[in-house]
């Protein structure tokens, strides 16, 4: 079946180390981490990726008070993406715009806050806010975008654990191919650092990063890695059909040429490298490419001892013999932005198509032999032998794997 070609024409992001693509890219090339310590109810001081974008840029204070952090991040990113795309937004038919936001989870923050709130009133449930349900419905972040931007097309969130960023992009591309919309605002978002339960859950699982220096806490592939740095963030793309983008003379970041989402069907937490490899292979097949056609592999690795090793097995299986590919990891800079991770990590790599560089993986002081890959870029950026394709991995709990391939438009 011949599908319409789908391209990326705009990027809006909020990352712990940058509020726009230029700042994000600059910090990735300069080796600057965005992880800091934050104080958390019940948990205390934890390393976390905290975003510092101007939330009042596109929202009033009342809207901020009523809405959620995930909604606010999504609104910021969506506006920035549209502005970056150069679209004539005022004239665009808003009923033909779809909003597809990937989320790892949603509602934990708001529910925890309300339980804490009523604990201050002797658990009088009459003090439970009437804003709770609109804040916690699963479409909240995407819905807040539509209300803020007066978009009347479809909106919903894609719940896909930590594969959600990629999954939101895939959903947007598919809706464009089906002709359901003419513009997709697609990507992922996370507000998870506002939930103590997320930290406590990882801690109980033995998977929460600890380090005296927060900027060193996220260290995928390093021997001393000890878990995940939880982060917030967002990344929304404007996706269009290639023909539409070319007709309006749009700047094109790249084409979504291949993707796959599959399931391990084995364990809720432990990844399955065989299925991850299958996922990458299926994305390559869709793109009509072989491993040697890929220039950058953007890994998912989160800094957990088991997870990183498993992904390396899968990456080696596919790319072990590919001498020209370069492999990196963006979580080493920003921690694990959960639902936003896949979308943010792809965005951090996209400028390689124009600057010809690949940003490194930082915090590898002593590589774990189980994670050693000769194509892994560490410490310093490298000049790419070729900069035309990126394969972006994003995996999540309950055994969900996602992989996207983006190709430079000549």
């Amino acid at each position: 079946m011949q599908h319409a070609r789908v391209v990326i024409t705009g990027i809006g992001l909020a990352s712990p180390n940058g509020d726009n693509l230029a700042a994000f890219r600059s910090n990735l090339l300069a080796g600057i981490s965005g992880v800091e310590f934050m104080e958390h109810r019940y948990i205390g001081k934890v390393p976390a990726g905290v975003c510092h974008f101007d939330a009042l840029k596109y929202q009033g204070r009342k809207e901020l008070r009523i809405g959620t952090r995930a909604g606010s991040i999504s609104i910021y990113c969506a506006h920035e993406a549209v502005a970056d795309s150069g679209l004539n937004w005022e004239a665009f038919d808003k009923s033909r715009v779809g909003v597809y936001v990937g989320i790892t989870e949603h509602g934990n923050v708001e529910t925890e806050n309300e339980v804490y709130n009523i604990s201050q009133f002797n658990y009088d449930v009459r003090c439970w806010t009437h804003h709770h349900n609109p804040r916690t419905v699963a479409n909240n972040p995407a819905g807040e975008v539509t209300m803020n931007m007066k978009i009347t097309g479809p909106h919903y969130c894609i719940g896909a654990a930590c594969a959600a960023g990629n999954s939101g992009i895939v959903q947007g591309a598919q809706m464009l191919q089906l002709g359901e919309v003419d513009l997709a605002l697609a990507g992922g978002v996370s507000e998870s650092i506002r939930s103590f339960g997320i930290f406590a859950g990882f801690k109980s699982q033995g998977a929460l990063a600890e380090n005296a220096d927060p900027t060193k806490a996220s260290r995928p592939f390093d021997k001393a890695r000890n878990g995940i740095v939880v982060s917030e963030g967002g990344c929304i793309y404007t996706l269009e059909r290639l023909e539409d983008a070319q007709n309006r003379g749009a700047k094109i970041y790249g084409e979504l040429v291949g993707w796959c989402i599959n399931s391990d069907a084995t364990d809720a937490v432990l990844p399955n490298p065989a299925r991850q490899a299958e996922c990458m292979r299926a994305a390559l097949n869709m793109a009509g490419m072989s491993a040697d056609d890929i220039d950058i592999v953007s890994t998912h690795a989160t800094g957990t001892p088991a997870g990183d090793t498993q992904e390396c097995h899968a990456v080696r299986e596919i790319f072990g013999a590919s001498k020209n590919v370069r492999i990196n990891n963006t979580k080493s800079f920003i921690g694990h932005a959960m639902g936003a991770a896949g979308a943010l990590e792809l965005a951090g790599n996209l400028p390689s198509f124009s600057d010809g560089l690949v940003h490194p993986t930082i915090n590898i002081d002593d590589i774990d032999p189980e994670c050693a890959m000769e194509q892994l870029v560490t410490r310093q950026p490298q000049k790419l032998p070729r900069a035309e394709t990126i394969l972006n991995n994003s995996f999540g709990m309950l055994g969900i794997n996602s992989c996207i391939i983006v190709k430079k438009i000549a």
Partner: protein
Amino acid sequence: MTKEECKKVVLKIISEIAPDENLDIVKPNVRLRDQLELDSMDFLDIVMELRKKYGINVPEADYIKLASLDSCAEYLTPLFNRLKTA
């Protein structure tokens, strides 16, 4: 508490609920919804803040009595004073 003090309490609550509104221009005898961007959810917020901050419970049947600053003062001042003497 006087009625004027009661109005200040209500305005303080509204300033937190609708922080972008200019409350200097509020006319006490005009319905709040006719001069401010307040919807039904905002009025529920006012009721909630009265409960949480001052222990005043406004039954649904009495919400109409919170329509203007003057009517708020008329209705709430005795309730505030009753709390003080309780």
